[in-house]
């Protein structure tokens, strides 16, 4: 819209009166809720087989609609709010889903600035008109004109200026002065989905979260005045645990009182964690539903969650890098799920997850901070739930024995944690796990392939390579790190003769699927006479 709308009325430039917000003595409480952006009557949710908000991000139809809603706002800069509302209502009628139009408009409304434009401050115009009406009365149209004349006289303005200012400050009469949306249509849809999920959570009575950033989750819950506990599913493995979040009053009844807090929690979870799932019990006018969300459904526009939480200390960062470089049978996770400590939780620095069994070892690095920190840690370690926990203790703390007395394994360090010390502990667990792992292996294995790497067979059975040492391979011969059928090995052997270049022999073996050339040549009775760094010649082994 052009500036013409700010135009000229009664031959005078139009003044502007911004209604200032009165100063407030405002103490925001924890539960003081900002009004939801998308109100409950605009909630779009499918109740077929669960409780599923109807997300729109990535939907081309929704994107076109979003662009049109943005267009309506842009096209009404300089116009009255009631005209904007009429245009939006017309769009609602055209669209299949009026609630989607209104929801998008609700988000865009926060990006719009409205202001009062009138020749006189409306409140002043009203006061003067009402006072004049008290003396004259305005029952008839003629009397009304007389009243406005008198009011105009008092303020020294034209009566029509009184008339046009009377209620120029009503919302419906205010003018859209500026519209600067933060989002393009696609981002608007992402924001819509987040707001929609938050609105759905307003009716939640309990939420359960798994997140790759539990620290942010737990501190947000505390800040919002919520209580949490760790629930380990009996039938699940040790990793199947979640943080159950409720409010104080939830002990006595199912209550939707904490819905707004849950909605704010969702935003934190989506903004901080790379991977998360959230399950919520929804009380939908007395009917119960389960709402399930994850990082594929909802994200915060313009915020990229960290793939891994930031390290608290250099000791931890350094340890993680060195451990991962070793490529052991253990996966390292930063800040894994929280552990229960009485009525509170503790989030260890790391977890080591064994690749070949559902087994997890937690690892806490205890550096020197303050006596209070050490005291708190010791108390936590005394009460933490029964899990495998290894604690690395700075020697200077001198509390190793105290911790060991609480049934945790202790690794001491000074300066940096030695990876070898931790690996040694993990090896002990491996030894314990070996029997369990091997128990599932058959005594004999006969792979279909003529030649296959031992490591691939191990991977297929989900066991470490060592575990295959006691297994028989009736159809194959083990040649170094490869299993190969004797007939196949013999056939390749025919192609190889003394005096051949090593590279040639290596190619012949590779064609047959045998990758460990040195071991195969040795098995066939040859040795390699190396020639510098570039190559070598195949020779008969000396008898």
């Amino acid at each position, binding site marked *: 819209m052009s500036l013409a709308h700010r135009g000229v009325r009664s031959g005078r430039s139009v003044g502007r009166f911004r209604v200032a917000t009165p100063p407030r003595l405002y103490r925001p409480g924890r*539960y003081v809720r900002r009004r939801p952006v998308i109100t409950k009557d605009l909630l779009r949710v499918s109740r077929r087989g669960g409780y599923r908000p109807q997300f729109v991000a990535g939907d081309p139809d929704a994107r076109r609609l979003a662009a049109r809603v943005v267009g309506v706002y842009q096209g009404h800069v300089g116009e009255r709010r009631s005209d904007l509302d009429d245009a939006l209502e017309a769009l609602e009628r055209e669209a299949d889903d009026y609630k989607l139009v209104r929801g998008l408009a609700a988000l865009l409304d926060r990006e719009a600035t409205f202001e009062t434009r009138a020749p006189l401050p409306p409140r002043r115009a009203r006061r003067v008109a009402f006072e004049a*009406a008290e003396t004259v*009365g305005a029952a008839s149209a003629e009397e009304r004109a007389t009243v406005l004349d008198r009011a105009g006289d008092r303020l020294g303005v034209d009566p029509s200026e009184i008339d046009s200012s*009377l*209620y120029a400050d009503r919302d419906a009469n205010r003018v859209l002065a500026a519209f600067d949306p933060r989002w393009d249509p696609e981002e608007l849809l992402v924001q819509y989905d987040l707001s929609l999920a938050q609105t759905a959570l307003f009716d939640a009575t309990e939420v359960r979260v798994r997140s790759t950033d539990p620290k942010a989750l737990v501190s947000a819950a505390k800040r919002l005045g919520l*209580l949490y*506990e760790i629930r380990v599913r009996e039938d699940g493995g040790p990793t199947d645990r979640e943080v159950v979040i409720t409010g*104080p009053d939830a002990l*006595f009844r199912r209550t939707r009182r904490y819905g707004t807090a849950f909605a704010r929690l969702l935003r934190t979870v989506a903004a901080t964690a790379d991977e998360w799932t959230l399950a919520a019990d929804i009380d939908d006018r007395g009917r119960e539903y389960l709402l399930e969300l994850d990082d594929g459904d909802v994200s915060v526009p313009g915020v990229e969650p960290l793939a891994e939480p930031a390290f608290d200390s250099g000791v931890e960062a350094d340890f993680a890098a060195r451990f991962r470089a070793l490529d052991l049978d253990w996966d390292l996770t930063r800040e894994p799920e929280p552990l229960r400590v009485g*009525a509170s939780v503790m989030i260890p620095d790391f977890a080591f997850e064994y690749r070949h069994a559902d087994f997890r070892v937690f690892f806490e690095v205890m550096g020197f901070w303050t006596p209070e920190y050490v005291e708190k840690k010791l108390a936590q370690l005394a009460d933490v739930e029964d899990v495998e926990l290894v604690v690395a203790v700075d020697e200077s703390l001198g509390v190793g024995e105290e911790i060991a007395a609480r049934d945790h394994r202790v690794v001491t360090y000074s300066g940096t944690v030695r990876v070898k010390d931790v690996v040694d502990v993990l090896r002990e667990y491996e030894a314990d796990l070996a029997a369990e792992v091997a128990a599932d292996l058959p005594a004999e294995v006969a792979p279909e392939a003529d030649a296959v790497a031992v490591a691939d067979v191990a991977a297929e059975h989900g066991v470490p390579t060592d575990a295959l040492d006691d297994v028989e391979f009736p159809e194959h011969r083990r040649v170094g790190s490869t299993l190969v059928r004797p007939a196949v090995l013999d056939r390749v052997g025919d192609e190889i003769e003394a005096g051949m270049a090593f590279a040639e022999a290596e190619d012949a073996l590779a064609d047959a699927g045998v990758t460990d050339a040195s071991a195969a040549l040795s098995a066939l009775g040859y040795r390699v006479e190396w020639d510098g760094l570039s190559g070598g010649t195949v020779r008969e082994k000396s008898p």
Partner: protein
Amino acid sequence: MPPVTLTYEDGTVRVAGAPAESLPGMEADARSATGRAPAHRYREIREALRERGRDVDDRVLDLPALPALDSGYVLREYQREALDAWEASDRRGVLELPTGSGKTVIALAAIVAAATPALVVVPTVDLLEQWHRELSATFDAPVGRLGGGEQTVEALTVATYDSAYLRADELGDRFGLLVFDEVHHLGGEGYRDIARLFAAPARLGLTATFERPDGAHEAVAELVGPVVYDLDPDDLAGEHLAEYEVRRVEVELTAAERERYEAAQGTFVDYVRDAGIRFTSGSDYQELVKRSGTDPRAREALLAKQRAREVMMNADAKLDRLARILDRHRGERVIVFTAHTALVYRISERFLIPAITAETGTDERRETLSRFRDGTYSRVVAANVLDEGVDVPEASVGVILSGSGSEREFTQRLGRILRPGADGTKTATLYELVTSETAEERVAQRRR
């Protein structure tokens, strides 16, 4: 035995070192590894512990200092009886008294008697203003205000139901007495939390109509106490209240209005017939609203119904009749009511009468009401915001331009006009302007 420690935590009482035998409302909370009870059971828990002779480290209430209070009011006989009944039931309970009987005065006396920080909870911003003014004028103490754009807490504080609900967890340990004005509102599912999450042992409810059709007054009785005193409007009529008469005025739609009405109503009726909705109960209307979420035709029908209603409410003839009424009652104090905000502004602009609606800012609302009270303005047009208990003395003429058909609204609006007038008028008059041969007329019929 170590003492039992009671602390307040976000709307609950946390019980540490609890006796093995259970306490009223207490349950074991694994999250904190203590006992816990809803805050409103605090008084019973304390009593139970006292009966058992347990040492108690009671840290539940965190009461601000309160200066000595004296209301200076002389109570009328029935007001004294009501207060005594409340005191006799351990400062718990509801007083059911007709509009205009001076419930505020009794509450002020109750605050003096309890001599403890008090929170007065009220349903509207207008009542917030009124109570704030009353408390400030009566007592020599600062008065806090929660709602209408302000959030201040003092030993004496007035809050809207909404603000009290939102901040109950946080402020539940700050008051020894709760006063609920129009206590029947507390029956609403959400508002009950206010009474549940505050620990205040003393509770007083005030209302003209305690019973709710949904039976929720039983829940209120549990949280605030039962009705300990009631009085019929008839007991007071003539003695403390003015005589009044009701005049019902029917107006016709113009031909053009009639046409627009029939068109919109037709769209609605067609859909309803096709969809087989019968409208035998309120839930049928709910059904239509529900369908409108997914069915564009249902939504169109709903919008058409709304248009039809608007034609009816806004009938031009009503404004003509209103002009005649205003003309006839020149110099008298007149309040005009209508449920439709748009109509309020139409009337305000047409007759240049100050308007009060939900859109009106706190400051201007305060100013308008105060100017109406002191006589600067003799007329005011309001949407439903003035419905309950707002102290608007001296008005002798009321005009209702539309009605929802709810009995409570009707009696309470009427009650406002019933107050004794100081402008010399012996009788108050209530006009009801309805459009004839439309659904609106049936609404008026049903109320009789």
